């Protein structure tokens, strides 16, 4: 812990000189590369460092500045550390990210600072002693007291009204802000963009309601508004907007829910915090404040589940075998997550809620990110995965076991279609939902929807120009249906394989997932619109892909079942050919032979757990395009 304290002090000193400039940030230079037809920028909007209690208690010592350096392509040392405090493992991205946001848990900023600062009152409080000597125990106690409690409270050492912890929270919040300012490339090169952010970490009853909070500029509230400060989601969203407005005219903020798969159906509840059905006011707050949802990350996929509501077999991707955090530690309470824990359910329910309320509370664009807890944004390669340490799981290899829990995965990336790599441009892309997520590979996916997009768009150099001219991009709403329109909307979809994939894997197929409301009930259907069965596979021993696939896929597809009276959404899923899951790489590297169970050491028994496949189909999910019947608009 001393080392951690030292790192905090060093980081503070390193950015101290920036404090003055942060208050009066100069206008940035115009980007040399600016494309009015927009380009895809790859990043990670969910990153934890040693400032998060659950990262710190599992040995993470790296700070926000280290995370941004790593995202830009520099080498990062991670735990475990040797006796001299030197990291024993190192990571480096083969391709830097375009943008990143450090989103540390805000709830225990002050408590953690006090426990690390001998000069602050409270340093010798019992919870701090536990934190310094038995961090794993502190992880459970702090989470139960604060983030997992329906009525979160501060520790008694925070003093009356928690004033001491609120005061101490200013230090890490300053570190977060100043690191983001220091690493934001304001030159005309526009190589790297950062966002000031944090995580609001509410999980009442251990049902996950977590949200990442991202600010558009350097103008942010004096302190992050945490779950302890405002545990009710509607009040949180309203107060966040108020505090942002008070921070300055350039302050803008949005929140991104994540891990609905661990919410036990609570993330997208249609029960209002006041009780009864969701109110229009709450729906408006969510609609305005939450344009995106994180569909996939280190702790699993939240797109959809295999169940009675779907025959979509690709919903089985990266599913966790439990429904909330409690079930991780009390396995007897584990059960499959309900349908309402998944984004597809929310998108369908949002259509129905819009019919009822006039506003869609769940009009989400889709992104993915890592949720790394070792300050390693964008570390998504399956073959070199060292663990992300989510949910308090230590990412070290104490007994020669796997580097992470078998049910977890490296996480994904967020992709934003923007004119340039700058905060205003990327933030605007998030606002209009022109965004998509990938499970790791840097697939490029472009989608336009319109009433009469030309059928010959594929392969045309002006694909994007005509797409924008004749329709709306992913995340948009179809314009009103022309009176003479007799057919359904068309969608121009173009997908490009990761040109430098790790490993290189061709595309397999493109699918359109349609959801709609008919006769008061929600429906869904998956259309295969390009590509198909490629017969490709994976060599189990070497993990080398076999068979053929596609370098790119493009189609202009028209909905053959369109009913103008039915509200609908359409999002695109692009699937790669099969490739090895991270656990297959790790188990192969450790020489595990599941055909000979006696030879498998206990620490690696998870390698032979048949619930987790050896291969996966990595993928991308685009934001939907919505259609609303005019009468319901």
């Amino acid at each position, binding site marked *: 812990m001393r080392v951690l304290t030292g790192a905090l002090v060093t980081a503070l000193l390193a950015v101290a000189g920036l404090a003055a400039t942060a208050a009066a940030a100069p206008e940035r230079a115009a980007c040399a590369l600016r494309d009015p037809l927009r380009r895809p920028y790859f990043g990670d909007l969910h990153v934890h460092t040693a400032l998060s209690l659950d990262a710190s208690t599992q040995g993470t010592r790296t700070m926000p500045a280290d995370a941004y350096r790593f995202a830009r392509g520099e080498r990062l040392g991670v735990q475990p550390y040797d006796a001299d405090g030197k990291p024993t493992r190192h990571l480096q991205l083969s391709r830097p990210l375009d943008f990143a946001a450090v989103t540390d848990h805000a709830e225990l900023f002050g408590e953690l600072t006090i426990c690390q600062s001998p000069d602050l009152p409270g340093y010798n409080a019992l919870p701090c002693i*536990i934190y310094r000597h038995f961090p794993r*125990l502190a992880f459970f*106690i702090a989470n139960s007291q604060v983030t997992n*409690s329906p009525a979160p409270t501060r520790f008694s050492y925070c003093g009356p009204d928690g004033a001491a912890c609120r005061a101490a929270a200013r230090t890490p919040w300053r570190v977060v802000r100043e690191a983001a300012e220091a690493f934001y490339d304001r030159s005309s090169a526009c190589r790297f963009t950062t966002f000031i952010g944090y995580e609001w970490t509410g999980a009442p009853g251990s049902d996950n309601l977590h949200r990442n909070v991202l600010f558009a500029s350097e103008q942010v509230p004096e302190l992050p508004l945490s779950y302890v400060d405002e545990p009710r989601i509607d009040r949180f969203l309203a107060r966040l907007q108020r505090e942002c407005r008070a921070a300055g005219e350039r302050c803008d903020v949005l929140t991104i829910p994540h891990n609905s798969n661990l919410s036990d159906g609570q993330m997208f509840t249609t029960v209002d915090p006041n009780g009864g059905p969701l109110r229009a006011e709450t729906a408006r707050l969510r609609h305005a404040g939450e344009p995106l949802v994180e569909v996939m990350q280190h702790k699993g996929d939240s797109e959809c589940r295999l169940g009675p509501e779907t025959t979509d077999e690709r919903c089985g991707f990266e599913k966790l075998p439990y429904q909330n955090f409690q079930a991780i*530690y009390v396995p007897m309470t584990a059960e499959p997550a309900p349908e309402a824990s998944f984004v597809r359910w929310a998108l369908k329910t949002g259509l129905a809620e819009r019919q009822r309320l006039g506003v869609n509370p769940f009009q989400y664009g889709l992104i993915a990110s890592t949720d790394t807890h070792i300050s390693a944004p964008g570390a998504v390669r399956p073959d070199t995965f060292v663990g992300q340490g989510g949910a308090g799981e*230590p990412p070290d290899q104490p007994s020669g*076991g796997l580097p992470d829990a078998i049910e977890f995965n490296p996480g994904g990336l967020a992709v934003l279609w923007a004119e340039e790599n700058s905060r205003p441009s990327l933030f605007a892309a998030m606002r209009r939902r022109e965004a998509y997520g990938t499970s790791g590979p840097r697939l490029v996916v472009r989608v336009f929807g319109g009433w009469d997009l030309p059928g010959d768009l594929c392969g045309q150099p002006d694909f994007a120009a005509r797409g924008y001219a004749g329709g709306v991009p992913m995340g948009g709403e179809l314009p009103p249906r022309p009176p003479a329109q007799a057919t359904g909307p068309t969608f121009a979809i173009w997908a490009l394989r990761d040109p430098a994939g790790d490993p290189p894997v061709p595309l397999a197929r493109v699918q359109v997932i349609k959801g709609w409301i008919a006769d008061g009930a929600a429906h869904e259907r998956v259309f295969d619109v390009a590509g198909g069965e490629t017969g490709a596979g994976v060599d189990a021993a070497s993990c080398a892909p076999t068979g053929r696939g596609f370098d790119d896929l493009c189609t202009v597809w028209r909905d053959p079942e369109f009913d103008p009276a039915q509200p609908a959404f359409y999002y695109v899923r692009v699937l790669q050919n099969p490739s090895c899951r991270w656990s297959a790489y790790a188990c192969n590297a450790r020489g595990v032979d599941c055909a000979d169970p006696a030879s498998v050491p206990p*620490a690696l028994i998870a390698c032979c757990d048949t619930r987790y496949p050896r291969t996966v189909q990595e993928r991308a999910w685009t934001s939907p395009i919505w259609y609303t019947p005019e009468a319901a608009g």
Partner: protein
Amino acid sequence: MALRPTRWLLWLVFCLTLPLPYFVIESGRIPAVQLLLFSALTAPLIFTDPGLTTNVIGVLFTVQTLLYGALLYVAARVVAARLPPARRGAMLCGIAVALALLALTDVYVAPLSRGSGPTNWLGLWP
């Protein structure tokens, strides 16, 4: 050596060394002395910083500490009674050395202080 001090010394050796299975969120095998330490650290939180899980943790540690304390006392009493009076001291030393040697092997599992892998007695104390 008299029976009573033999009994108490034996109990102390047992408490210091024997790996005892416990459950508090994550299960493991640690000596009673570490359970006692965890009880001392967490039980006061029931009064200063009460919360459902905190209370459960404090109570579970305390209950298991008391339970093992009593069980080990009974065990020490039984063993001490069976030691030949003339060789009690020597045999007590022998048991203590044997258990100390055992404690230096990876017989403990201490997720709350060491991580998920096995560890020896020295590894129990970060």
